[in-house]
C-alpha cells in the first residue's frame, strides 16, 4: 500500500479547512459513516484554533453512536521482557539495551491482580505476554490463569500474546477469552520503519483468525513514532477497514535503550487531534486511552480525551510503566457523569 500524497491544497487556517468539521458533522454524527483516509488527514491538519470544536464534535459522535458509558480495563504482564522481536518502541525487546529484565507472573498473582482490577468497577482484564507468539509453556500458563480468574472473579478476560496459529486461536476461544488484542502498531507503509522481525501482514492474519474464531478484535497502535500525518491518516483508515471492536490508542513514551528512545514526545494538541480524528474515522468502536497519555497530555489529558472521543480507559499501571492512580480516573468518570460500562453490557 502506498503512502497517500494529500490532495489538499488548503494550508492551516484557510477557511476550507474548517469545512471538514461541517462535513464530519453531517457524515459521521448524523449518518454514522466514518471519515475516509483523506478526510482524516484534513482533520489532522486542522489548526490548534479548531481543536476545541473538533473535540466537541468527536465527543458528540461518541455519545451518539456509543453512549455515555466508559469501558474500564486493567492490564497485566504475565511474561515481561526478553522478546525476540525488534519493535523499535518496546522496552521488552531482548534485542535492545533496555533495563527491563525478564519476569514471569504466577497464577495466584494473576488472580489477585484481576480481583483488584474488578474492585475498581473494571469489566476487562487483559493478560499480556512479551512474545512473538505463545509456546506451549505460555499457552498452559494462560489456560491455568484464565480458568483461575474465571473461578474467582466476575470479569471479562482478554489476552495479548502475539501472533497466533489457527490452533492457538481455537484454544483461546475455548478457554473463554472474549477479546484478543493484537496491535497493527502503525500504518502499513510505516511498519518496516518500526519492526523488521515480522510483517504487518502477519499481524493482520492473526487478527483475521481471531475474528473468524468469534473472539472480539482489539487492535490499535502507537502514534508519535515519526510517522507523517499522511501515515497517521492511513493507519486510521486501515483500522477502520478492520472494524475492530476496540482500538487502544497509545502515544509514544520513548523508552531508554530502544531505537525510538530519543524521539520527541508528541505534543498534547497533536495527541488530542489524533484521538478526535480516530473517533471520527470509527464512530462506533471502543476507543481506549492506553499508554503514554500521562506523559503526553498530563493530568488534564484524561478529561480532554474523555470529552474528545475516548470511551474507554486502562486504569492503574501499564505493563512496565506506571499510570495515574486508578481512583483518579474513576473519580473523574463520576465527575463527568460517565457511567462505567457494566459487565452484562459487555458480554
Amino acid at each position, binding site marked *: 500500500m502506498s503512502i497517500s500524497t494529500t490532495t489538499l491544497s488548503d494550508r492551516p487556517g484557510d477557511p476550507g479547512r474548517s469545512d471538514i468539521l461541517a462535513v464530519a458533522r453531517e457524515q459521521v454524527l448524523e449518518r454514522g459513516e466514518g471519515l475516509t483516509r483523506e478526510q482524516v488527514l484534513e482533520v489532522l491538519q486542522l489548526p490548534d484554533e479548531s481543536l476545541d470544536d473538533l473535540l466537541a464534535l468527536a465527543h458528540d459522535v461518541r455519545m451518539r453512536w456509543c453512549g455515555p458509558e466508559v469501558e474500564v480495563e486493567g492490564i497485566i504482564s504475565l511474561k515481561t521482557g526478553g522478546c525476540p522481536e525488534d519493535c523499535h518502541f518496546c522496552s521488552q525487546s531482548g534485542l535492545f539495551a533496555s533495563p527491563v*529484565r525478564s519476569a514471569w507472573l504466577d497464577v495466584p498473582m494473576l488472580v489477585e491482580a484481576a480481583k483488584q482490577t474488578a474492585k475498581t468497577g473494571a469489566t476487562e482484564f487483559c493478560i499480556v505476554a512479551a512474545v512473538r507468539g505463545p509456546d506451549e509453556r505460555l499457552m498452559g500458563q494462560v489456560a491455568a490463569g484464565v480458568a483461575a480468574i474465571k473461578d474467582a472473579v466476575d470479569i471479562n478476560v482478554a489476552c495479548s500474546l502475539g501472533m497466533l496459529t489457527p490452533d492457538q486461536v481455537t484454544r483461546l476461544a475455548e478457554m473463554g477469552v472474549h477479546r484478543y488484542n493484537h496491535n497493527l502498531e502503525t500504518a502499513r507503509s510505516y511498519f518496516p520503519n518500526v519492526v523488521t522481525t515480522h510483517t504487518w501482514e502477519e499481524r493482520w492474519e492473526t487478527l483475521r483468525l481471531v475474528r473468524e474464531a468469534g473472539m472480539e478484535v482489539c487492535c490499535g497502535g502507537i502514534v508519535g513514532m515519526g510517522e507523517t500525518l499522511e501515515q497517521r491518516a492511513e493507519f486510521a483508515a486501515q483500522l477502520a477497514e478492520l472494524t475492530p471492536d476496540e482500538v487502544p490508542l497509545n502515544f509514544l513514551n520513548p523508552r531508554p535503550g530502544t531505537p525510538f528512545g530519543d524521539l520527541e514526545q508528541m505534543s498534547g494538541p497533536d495527541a488530542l487531534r489524533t484521538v478526535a480524528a480516530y473517533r471520527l474515522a470509527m464512530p462506533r468502536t471502543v476507543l481506549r486511552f492506553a499508554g503514554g497519555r500521562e506523559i503526553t497530555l498530563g493530568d488534564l489529558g484524561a478529561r480532554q480525551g474523555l470529552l474528545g472521543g475516548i470511551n474507554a480507559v486502562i486504569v492503574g499501571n501499564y*505493563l512496565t510503566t506506571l499510570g495515574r492512580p486508578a481512583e483518579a480516573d474513576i473519580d473523574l468518570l463520576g465527575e463527568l457523569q460517565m457511567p462505567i460500562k457494566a459487565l452484562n453490557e459487555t458480554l
Partner: protein
Amino acid sequence: MTAPVQEPAADGAAQFCDQCGAPAAEPGHERCAARRTLEPPRFCPQCARRMVVQVDPFGWTARCSRHGETHS
C-alpha cells in the same frame, strides 16, 4: 546489558540511580528524576544490578539478586 556492580555503602544508603544505574552522585540525573514518577525502579540503588521488576495494575515489586525485594 550488564550494569556496573559496586559494593553498597556500609550504611546501605543509595549509591546508584534506580533509573539509569549510574552513580547517584554523578551529575545528569534530571531526566531520571522526571521519569521516576511514572517508572518503577530498574537498578538496585545499593549495587546497581538490574532488578527483576514486576508491575501490576496497582503497584510494583523489584528484586535485586543480592539485596532482596522492594515494593511500592
